[in-house]
């Protein structure tokens, strides 16, 4: 195998990270955070980073994540108040989010791991990684961003 081909293969086997920009999210409809295209991916983790303090999270805001319409957290999980730098780790299965509101969190989450969730495989049909906020809007100056850590199972697979 040619040297460049080997480096290309090494590149394709590494961990990739998709990132979203800091955004203020309103409650209600599902928000598409990322889209899967090109092939199968193994999603190792999905998390929300609080770029600012988010008081709305202390006011009963709920958060639900899905990959291709399949829940990666239990519905209607009440979030906790957060300061800038806090992280919300999605459990990758339909169980409660318990890792939230701290700047350091176990990954996978404790309840996720107890329920045997850690990673999910998904393809580009539907292809939507979505989050729905409920109950309350984030205030005007409040921002959060998302990270999706994944492996490409197919060479052209991409999360963006």
């Amino acid at each position, binding site marked *: 195998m040619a040297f460049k081909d*080997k480096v290309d293969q*090494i590149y394709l086997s590494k961990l990739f990270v998709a990132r979203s920009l800091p955004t203020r999210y309103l409650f209600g409809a599902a928000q598409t955070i990322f889209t899967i295209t090109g092939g199968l991916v193994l999603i190792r983790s999905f998390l929300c980073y609080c770029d600012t303090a988010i008081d709305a999270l202390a006011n009963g805001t709920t958060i639900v994540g899905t990959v291709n*319409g399949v829940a990666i957290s239990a519905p209607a999980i009440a979030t906790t108040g957060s300061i800038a730098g806090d992280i919300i780790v999605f459990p990758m299965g339909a169980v409660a989010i318990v890792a939230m509101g701290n700047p350091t969190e176990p990954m996978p989450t404790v309840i996720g791991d107890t329920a*045997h969730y*850690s*990673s999910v495989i*998904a393809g580009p049909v*539907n292809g939507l990684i979505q989050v729905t906020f409920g109950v309350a809007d984030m205030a005007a100056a409040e921002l959060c961003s998302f990270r999706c850590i994944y492996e490409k*199972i197919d060479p052209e697979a991409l999360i963006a």
Partner: protein
Amino acid sequence: MAFNDEVDQIYLSKRFVARTPPTVQVNAAPATIFTITGGLVLITGLFVYHDTVVATALTLDVEINGVPMDSAASISAAGPAGSVTVIPLGAVAILTPGVLSGPVPTLLADAGHFGQVIAGPVNGLITCTFTTGPLVAPETISWRCVYYKIDPEALIA
């Protein structure tokens, strides 16, 4: 160590993926999906992907080197295009047929302490038997096998 040798070593330690083309798989007897050659491999994932809608209810029985990778007669793999069936890599039921996104390892596999297997090239066969089905054209599926080379010449193809 020379730079090229270092790249060679990194290359050998990376994760590999073997793939099959989309196929109208109809086997009632064990069909070879992949073959292990050259040395030991650590298999960390084995998946069936629905390239088209598969309306036919299927029962899969997957083995590696003759060792069951799921419990027999436990799976219905019908599902829409884009569905993924995760093989548990242990003799437990498959829990994730016909879904567009499924946990890896499967819930039962993780509960049963399965999730990856080591295997060598003697026998060397990764096989699948459809005990019900089979697929009907134009229904097609393809396979992915995610693995690491334990020996330098090991290969799954």
